[in-house]
Every structure is written in C-alpha cells, then in structure tokens.
C-alpha cells in the first residue's frame, strides 16, 4: 500500500462519514414527520484490486431504510386520522380516482382529511384509495393484486335513500297469568312502526288476547288504517326445558282484503304480511319466533313487555363516520342506519426495503420491492388500522445523536489521516534540496 493510496482511503472515509452525517441530519429534520421512516448508512469496503488481499480497502456508505420498525402512536381527535399498527402501507394516489397505476404509491402517513370535494387527502397531498362497498353492503370480488379496482375514499356526497321495511322481529314476554281465566282480560294492543318504500313511517298494530285456555293467546294484526290483516292462535309450552317458548301456531286466518295478504309458516313462526300501499304491494316478514325457541315472543308469569326490531329507514344524511380495526369505514346516518362505505386496505410488498423513496414520505413500487398485495387490515401479516391516531416517525433522537458522535469521531480521525499523510508527503518532497 502506497502513501498516496492511504490519502485516497482517508478521503473515502471522509466522504462516507459526511454521507452518514447527511443521513442523520435528514432523520433529525424529519423526527416529527408523521409516518417517516428513518434512513441510516451502512459502511462497506471497496477495493480496486482483485481478491488477493493486497488491494487497498477504501470505504463507501450505503443508504438503507429502517422500514420495519414502527413509530409511536399519537392519538388525535380526528376520526379520519389513521395509523397502521403493524406491517403494511396505505395505498394512495397522486390524483383523485387515479387511473394510471404508476401514480399509485404506498405511505404510512395517515393524516387524512376531506378536501373540498370530500376526498380524503393526507398532508402530503396524496389521496387515500380504498375498495367501495355497494348499497347491499357487499364488497364483491375485488382484485387485491393491483390498484385497478381502487377508488378514492370520498365522504362528501353520501346520502342514503329511504329503504322499505322488510322484516320486523318481535321480542318480549306475554304474561302467562292472564291466560286460562274464565273471562280473560282486555287485549294488550301494541304497535310497531315500519317504513314504506318512500320512507314514510306507518305502523302495524298487534293485539294480544289471552284466551280461556291455559297458555294460549290469540294474536290479531291490523294495518296502519285499522283494517284487519289476519290472526293466529299461539300455544306456549308450559313445562320442561322449553317452558315459556311457543309450542305451536294454529288457526292461521287471513282477514286481509286482496291485494293485502297474511300468511304464517307454523314451522318458523314467520308471518308474511303483504300491504296494499303501492302499485307493488310491500311485503313484510314478521318474526314471532320459531316453535320451541326463545328468540322471539315468550310467555312467562310476569309483565307484558314487547319490543320490536325492524329494518328499513327514512331518507338519511351522513352524520359521522367510524373506522374499525379491519379498515372498514362505516357511515352513521341521521335516520339511525349504519352502513359500510369503504374498505381501506393495507398494502404489503414482498421486500419493503426495495421500495423507492418519493417525496411526501411515500414509497413507490420497484422491481426490487416484489409483488404488491392490498390485504384487508388486521388479517394475515398486515397490521390493523387505528382510527383517531397517527404514527410518529420511527426516528429516535438518542440513537441519531450517538450515531452522530460516532460519525463525527470517524470523520475527524479520517481528517487526521489525511493531514498526517499530507505532512508525510511534504517530508518526502523536502528530501531533495
């Protein structure tokens, strides 16, 4: 090894360490950037000659990303702030509803807020992509290996049209002590509201009349205008493990005027009521509870209590949104409905270290990053989505400081080598007078 190569080696040391300091300064500058991943320099030797062991070993620094370690979670008050707890990235695009696949990127920065059009956009200006649910609440088959079926998540113009009631479930108790009396007391009349196809609220009346037979009740149902629809006699079990549950449905009689109709399946306890309130009559299934089950109406000694659970709704406006661990974004509407709007997938790639760094702490796919896949959050190897939280950068100041000390010392030592070699070379030139 010659003296001039010692100078070169010293210079390579200076360069490598100043690169490392550059990386550290990037990290410290971004210590408070949401979703930032720290970079670090690793030193590798370089040599000009072959592998004989006689070559000169210089050094160069290689930039690496510490993409796997997570940052701390900062809780916020905005529901649309999201943080991924675990591995994975949000899929974001440069423009709303981007069609060019190369304009899609991955990021951990989840500080999303709706823009003027209601599109969720993060502080770096990237739009959040997700899979939309259709009105039936199903996602269908989506291609999770590309961005093609993703849409920009939009919470701006979501309304909910009225939905006709199709099922009403009855629950509660009938007082058994009222049955079997020579002159049974008055009927218990109660009603349940339902929604027509236009979202109007109407009600069905249920009159429960105790009979003079023990544990037997007559139920008659009337429509919103007081017209009879039908009646049924219900016997309840009086003993054994099934005591209190319906035993059988009998005397199923329709008193409805066509096109209104009333039928009841004695095996399931589900009555089908057809209401004449439009060109196409509305059909409502009233679930009284299957025989020998306790999921509907029961009869024990006690109070008359009855409650209804029905679907359907009037016209609704979006009130607020909720995002669950699985990344499903629900809309809560002012008519009481809760509907899944989007699935926010968590993307993973085979080799996250191969991602290309882009501005706005996003990462682009590259040949090295390997196959991309948008998973449902909290499944498989990907993390869960935490709403109302942001992920801090994974920069640790103390580590950066210690790295800085090491780099500084290495730098000054290298500088010392260069000055020493310089002095030595000066000595050499002074050998000849």
């Amino acid at each position, binding site marked *: 090894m010659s003296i001039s190569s010692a100078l070169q080696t010293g210079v390579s040391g200076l360069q490598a360490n100043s690169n490392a300091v550059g990386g550290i300064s990037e990290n410290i500058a971004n210590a408070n950037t949401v979703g930032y991943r720290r970079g670090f320099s690793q030193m590798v030797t370089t040599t000009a000659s072959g592998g004989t062991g006689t070559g000169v070993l210089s050094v160069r620094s290689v930039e690496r990303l510490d993409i796997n370690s997570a940052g*701390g*979670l900062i809780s916020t008050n905005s529901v649309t702030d999201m943080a991924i707890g675990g591995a994975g990235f949000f899929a974001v695009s440069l423009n709303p509803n981007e069609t060019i696949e190369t304009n899609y990127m991955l990021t951990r920065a989840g500080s999303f807020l709706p823009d003027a059009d209601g599109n969720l956009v993060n502080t770096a200006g990237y739009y959040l992509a997700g899979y939309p649910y259709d009105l039936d609440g199903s996602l269908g088959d989506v291609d999770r290996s590309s961005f093609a079926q993703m849409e920009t998540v939009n919470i701006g113009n979501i309304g909910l049209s009225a939905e006709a009631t199709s099922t009403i479930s009855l629950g509660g108790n009938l007082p058994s002590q009222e049955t079997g009396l020579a002159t049974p007391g008055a009927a218990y009349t109660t009603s349940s509201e339902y929604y027509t196809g236009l979202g109007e609220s109407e009600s069905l009346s249920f009159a429960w009349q105790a009979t003079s037979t023990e544990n037997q009740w007559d139920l008659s149902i009337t429509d919103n205008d007081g017209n009879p629809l039908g009646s049924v006699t219900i016997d309840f079990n009086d003993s054994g493990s099934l005591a209190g549950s319906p035993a059988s449905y009998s005397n199923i009689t329709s008193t409805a005027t066509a096109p209104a109709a009333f039928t009841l399946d004695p095996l399931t306890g589900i009555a089908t009521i057809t209401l004449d309130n439009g060109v196409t009559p509305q059909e409502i299934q009233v679930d009284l509870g299957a025989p020998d089950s306790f999921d509907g109406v029961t009869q024990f000694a006690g109070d008359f209590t*009855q*409650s209804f*659970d029905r679907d359907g709704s009037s016209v609704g406006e979006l009130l607020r949104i909720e995002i669950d661990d699985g990344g499903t974004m629900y809309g*809560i509407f002012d008519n009481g409905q809760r509907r899944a709007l989007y699935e926010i997938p968590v993307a993973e790639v085979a080799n996250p270290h191969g991602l290309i760094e882009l501005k706005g702490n996003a990462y682009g796919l590259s040949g090295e990053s390997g196959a991309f896949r948008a998973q449902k959050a909290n499944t498989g190897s990907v993390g869960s989505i935490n709403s109302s939280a942001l992920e801090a950068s994974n920069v640790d100041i*103390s580590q950066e*400081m210690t790295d800085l000390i090491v780099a500084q010392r290495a730098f000054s030592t290298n500088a010392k080598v260069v000055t020493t070699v310089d002095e030595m070379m000066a000595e050499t030139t002074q050998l000849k007078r």
Partner: protein
Amino acid sequence: MSNLTTALYTARTGLASTQTLSSVTADNIANSATPGYVRRSALLSSAGPDQGGALVREIRREVDHALVRMSRRETSRMARQQAVHEGLASYTVYLGQPGDGISPAEKFSAFQNSLTTLVNSPSSNGAQSGAVLAAEDLAASIRGASETLTETRAEVVMEIRYEVAELNQALYDLAALNNSRRNFAPGTAEAAQFDDDIDSLLDQISGIADIRTSRASDGLLSVYTTGGVALLEGDTVHDVTYNTGDGTLKAGVNDITPDRAGIRGLEQGSLAGLSELSQEILPQFQLQLDEYARSLIEAFENADASLSAGQPGLFTDNGFALDPNDTEGLAARIAVNDAVKVGIGSEVWKLRDGLGATAEGEASDSTQIQAFLDALDAPAGVDSATGIPATVSIADLGAEIVTAQSTTRARAESQFNAASSAAAVVLSARQNAEGVNIDEEMQKLLLIEQSYAANSKMLQTISEMMDTLLAAV
C-alpha cells in the same frame, strides 16, 4: 420498538389520559348536586403492541338498570295516589268532619234541633225564624259543598290537560334527544350527557304515566305504556290526546284511558289518578250530595199536608218543586222556599202550618212540625251508586256522606304515604348507585394527581437524558 422517543410519546398519552380522568372527576364533583346526573367513570386501556401508552376507551355512566326501572315504577305508583290525595284535599277541608260545626252534617243537626225546639213551642215566632234560618244554613252548606266540588272537578280536568301537554312535550323532547344522541359515538362524554337528559325526561314521564322502554338495534329508544301502546317509536311521537267529554285518553289511535273495561289503559301515574278522580270519585261525591239534596226536598214535600201537587215544600229546587227526573246537580240548586224567608213581613208561621197554608192556623198546633221531624227519621232511599245503603235515614245521611268522603281521602292519603315511602327507599338506593360520592372522587383525584406528576417526571427525565446526549456531541 422502544426507545427514548417512544418513551416520550408514552408519557404524553399518560398525561392526556390523566387529563381526561381529571375532567371526568371535575364533572362528577361539579354535578354532585345536579338532579339526574349519573356518575361517570373513564375506562382506560393500553394502546396495543408496538405502541406504548394508555388511551381512554370509554366514558361510562354508572347506571343500574334494574334500580332505574323499579324507581320509575314506584314513582308512577306514588304519583297516582298523590294525584288522588291532593285533588281531594282542598274539597274535604271545605267539607269538614262530623263534629266540627261547619260540615253539612253539623248544619243538619242544628236544623233538626231547631225543629225539635219548635215542636215544643210552635207559637214562638223566634223559634220559627230560628228553624228557617237553620234550614237556610243547611241549604247554603250543601250548595257550598257542591260548588267546591264543581270547582275541584274543573281543576282536575284542567290538571289532566296540563299533564297531557307536559307528557306530549316530554315525548317530543325525547324524540329530539333520541336524534341528537346519534351524532355522538356511544362511550363519549357527549353521549353520556344526552343519556342523562333522556333519563331525566323518562323519570318525569313516569310520574305522569306508567311506562316501559326498549332500545332497538339502531340505538333508538322507544317508549310504551305498560299495556303495550306505543308513545314514542324512535323519532315518531304518538300524541296523547284528552277528550273532556267522556274522559277518553288516547295515544295516537289507541285508547289508553285508565280503568276502562275492555282495554289495557294506564295503570299508574298522575294521569291514572286524575282520571280516577274525574271519572269515579268526584262523580260519586256529586251523586251523594245530589241524593242528599233530593231526599231533603222530597221528605219535606211529602210530609207537608198543605201542599197541592207541584207546589214546592220547605226545601225547593231553586224555588220549584222537585222534578224526580232532573236531580243531576240538585245539590247546587237546593234553596229554602221564599215563602218563609226571614225578613220584614215574612210568613215564618208557614213552617208550623205547612208551606201551602193560606192563613195562619192555631198557634199551639205542632202536628205539621212533628210530621217533618218524623219524615227525617225515614230511610232516605239513596241511589246504590252512592255506595251508601238505601236504609240510612235522612237524619244520618249527612254524617254518612261526610264520613264516606273523608274516608276516601284518608285512604288516598295513607296509600300515598305508603307509596311515597316505598318510592323514597328505591330512589335513595338509586341515588346511592348512580350519584356522586365526593370522598371517592377526592381519592381518585389524589391518584390522578400522582399519575400526572409521575408522567411529567418521565417527560422531564427523558428531556434531561436528551440534554446529556446533546452536550456529549
């Protein structure tokens, strides 16, 4: 990954959650005397893997639903008895009691005594005038009782209207709260505030009517009567209406009139009590007074030999003879015959000779007066609907009525007392379960203070460690 920076964030979540804890505690302490306020507690949980720190998951209201239900039921019961008791109180004070000198029964014995005096000295003009004045006193006392009763009935009807209006208002408020509550996720401080308001309204409603509530899967509260009729379904209110004519109460299209045959009406609450007053108790009181007036007029007409058909006796129906088909409200119209009115040129001797006599008879003849006295001992034959036996004599009827009416009130009072002490017991149990215990909150505050101090110490220490590091570079 845990390092200095995450430690910093962790300490910060600690500070944030203790701040929430202290605001919840402050809220509890500030509202310790607020009626309807239910103690809240904040539930913390750790943030999860890879993330240090504590998060506030839920702000919970400490409600015991069974106690709440029981307390509402007792409130309804008490309110019913209270309505009856208070509705009768002013009337029975006016009516007085046997032996107090002011009740119609007392006036009657004064009248009877003056007749007895007159039997012994039929010629005495003073005794005659005395008997007429006593008769006028008696008639005035019956009229006064009837008038007070009419006022009481009017007040009860008015009270029902007020209560119905209040009930409807509460139901609409509840519907509005039901809607607003959905703007906030369950488990937030805002939702707890709405739940407090909703519970207060339900407590208020349970004083008016006996109710049952249920919450559907969409989070909406529905209110039903215990008979099953819907008052509120989500945001649909079934208005309660009152028909003054026949006393019918309706919720939407369904009849909820208390104590009516063939329907499951309201059973408890002030509406049930007031309805019982206006439909049963007060009409019966009125009938008793009317029957008393009828039997007096009738007895003096029948016992008076001097009268020709259609001529009024000593007591009249507003100056006329009794019309047996028109006895309703008779108690308000009973008056002493003008023919014997005491004054200048009055003919009080007619009391001795019969109201139909045209000329003064023999001064010592007491036959007619004796006949009057005898008539008073005959059975009054009152209507069975009064609840008084038909065999009770006219002489005893007044005392019988006063006693019967006072007993009704006394029974209502004792039932009210029983119901109110039961309600008080349940209410205090509920307050113990739901209310704020200042000592407990203070003890929590100590822990919060320590936890806050410890978390800030963490921050300080981490910051010092950073400083050390910076100084080393």
